[in-house]
């Protein structure tokens, strides 16, 4: 039964219009703007072609920002995935207190990051912070975690791992559940008893697609880091924690050089697109694995 085309149009039009106005349209505008030197509030704009991109390439702040973002991405993804996998394996290996552990590790994911960032600011306080107190307690040297140029990015990465590991854990728990109990039983009967052997021969290979998926999820989220940087360090000290989104924010809404900021946004979008493609192929592999 074919529905009257007018009805279909009415069903689709709000979504389509909003999609174009607020999602697809703006991306197209950003791409176009990146080829201009427009400043917010200016009456005119000039076409500069790829000059913005050339400037990005030689801009030391942008290069630093990009490098910081990539380092942050690698640290947080590796940390979250490792801790997420470890806790998922431990939780799944027995039935006691599963709910409690799952809640505990997932809580950072559920919380409001900005508020917790303020808490972390206090925790990392050089003299009154819990972290330094604990370090002193075991005899180690306290540090100025957020103001030390060499440490600041790693401190932020630690907070990032804290916030993300629970998400990785939950995704791994789902992946572990999908390993058929029969295969585990068969392995037990075959003599695969040692936990390391079980992990190496059965769990890890069968988790392959899940692992790839989790890595891309964490990477995409890590690439979008902004909140902690803006709240705790503002990109400092000395741009050591300057990250992509923060640079875009500073250029576009601090200096109002929106053309230039658009070029940065294009780079940002490209990164996300790439990671999303990897994620899609990971999901493909997941469904074909059985």
């Amino acid at each position, binding site marked *: 039964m074919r529905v009257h085309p007018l009805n279909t149009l009415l069903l689709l039009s709000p979504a389509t219009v909003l999609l174009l106005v607020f999602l697809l349209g703006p991306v197209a505008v950003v791409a176009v703007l990146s080829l201009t030197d427009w400043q917010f509030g200016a009456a005119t704009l000039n076409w500069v072609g790829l000059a913005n991109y050339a400037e990005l390439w030689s801009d030391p702040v942008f290069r630093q920002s990009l490098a910081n973002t990539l380092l942050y991405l690698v640290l947080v993804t590796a940390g979250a995935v490792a801790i997420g996998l470890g806790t998922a394996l431990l939780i799944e290996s027995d039935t006691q207190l599963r709910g409690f552990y799952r809640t505990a590790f997932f809580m950072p994911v559920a919380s409001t990051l900005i508020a917790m960032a303020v808490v972390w600011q206090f925790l990392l306080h050089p003299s009154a912070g819990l972290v330094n107190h604990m370090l002193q307690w075991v005899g180690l040297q306290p540090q100025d975690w957020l103001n030390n140029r060499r440490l600041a990015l790693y401190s932020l990465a630690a907070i990032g791992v804290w916030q993300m590991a629970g998400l990785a854990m939950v995704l791994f728990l789902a992946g572990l559940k999908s390993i*058929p109990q*029969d*295969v585990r*039983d*068969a*392995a*037990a*009967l*075959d*003599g*695969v*008893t*040692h936990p390391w*052997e079980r992990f*190496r*021969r*059965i769990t890890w*290979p*069968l988790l*392959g697609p899940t692992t790839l998926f989790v890595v891309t999820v964490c990477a995409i989220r890590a690439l979008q880091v902004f909140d902690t940087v803006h709240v705790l360090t503002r990109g400092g000290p000395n741009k050591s924690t300057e990250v992509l989104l923060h640079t875009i924010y500073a250029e576009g809404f601090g200096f109002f050089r929106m053309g230039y900021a658009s070029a940065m946004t294009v780079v940002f979008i490209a990164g996300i697109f790439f990671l999303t493609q990897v994620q899609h192929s990971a999901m493909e592999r997941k469904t074909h*694995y*059985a």
Partner: protein
Amino acid sequence: MPDIHIHGLSKQFGATHVLKGLDLTVRDGEFLTLLGSSGCGKSTLLRLIAGLDQPDAGTLHLGERDLLPLSPGERDCAMVFQSYALYPHMTVGENICTPLLMRGLNFWQRLPGMRWLLPAVRRQHAAAEASARKVAHSLGIDALWGRKPAQLSGGQRQRVALARAMVRHPAVFLFDEPLSNLDANLRQALRAEIRQLHDQLGVTFIYVTHDQHEAMSMSDRVAVMREGRVLQLGTPDEIYRQPAHVEVARFVGAPRINLLPAEIRGAGIWVQGQQIGHVPPGQEGAACQVGFRPQLGLQDGDKGLALQGRISGVEYTGAELIVTVQLAHTQAQEQVVFCLPAQQAGLRVGEPLQAWVPLAQLHVFGADGQRLAFEPLSTQLDAAA
């Protein structure tokens, strides 16, 4: 190999008592089937024997050896699963070699890379592969050596699972409904193959199924289970001819056994308004059941249990007629079923029918379901029965 002794085995999951103090002896080299409907505990029992679960109470011995403290890999049992349980990421060859590698090499020799470093490890791998190939050849799957399970059909996967079990030369083979996922033709072929395998190897096979046809056609002995207990343990013939419990009689045989309510008055037992014989004392007034198999046919002559009624259904299967008869002398709407040769004439729906069931072929079950010793009335016994 010695016998397997199971004594007082109990297991509960949460609030459900799946096994309640089960006793069983599995003789060396026999093909024993655990038969029952789902939930009766047969799969649980199998898993306890394999070591995949621990019982709450009871003992399990292989001869003198206590199996309970041993891990599944140490019990020398191999298991073939309903879902095949092949390692999806390994090829057929790797699947079959795995049990040999787990046994032949110790932990350090199994670490990644050792194969290329130590010649002794390499030799073990080669020996394992040789054994595995031999077994694969005997099951006709050597052509599939490099494929992954996802690329195989159901029957092929089952053979790979069998090969993986066989390659270890275990003391006991365990089968958990291995043929349920296959279509009827394949099931028939594999049934025969599994039985042949047993005769070849001479090793104890413990087979779990809910299909009574499978159980009857393959086994040396059958343990009919229900609600965590063994109702009867015996040869297929014993199970069929002398069911010890009404549930055993109901479960085995197709079409189902006919059951009619009977009454005990004094020492006599009455069915359909006739006394058919005597039962041991102590069962006064109890409500029991009398059963007979549909395959008995319609007896001529007027000796035996007389049944009168009207034909309510006739099913033609090509080989026979399955006739359902609505009985006349009843309070409830009782029906009995007869299996008759296809050529039998005069059978149409609505026609009246009269039949006599020889008393010697009747089974009597008490109110608790247990078989009752029953002495048929001599006057009604057919001379040639």
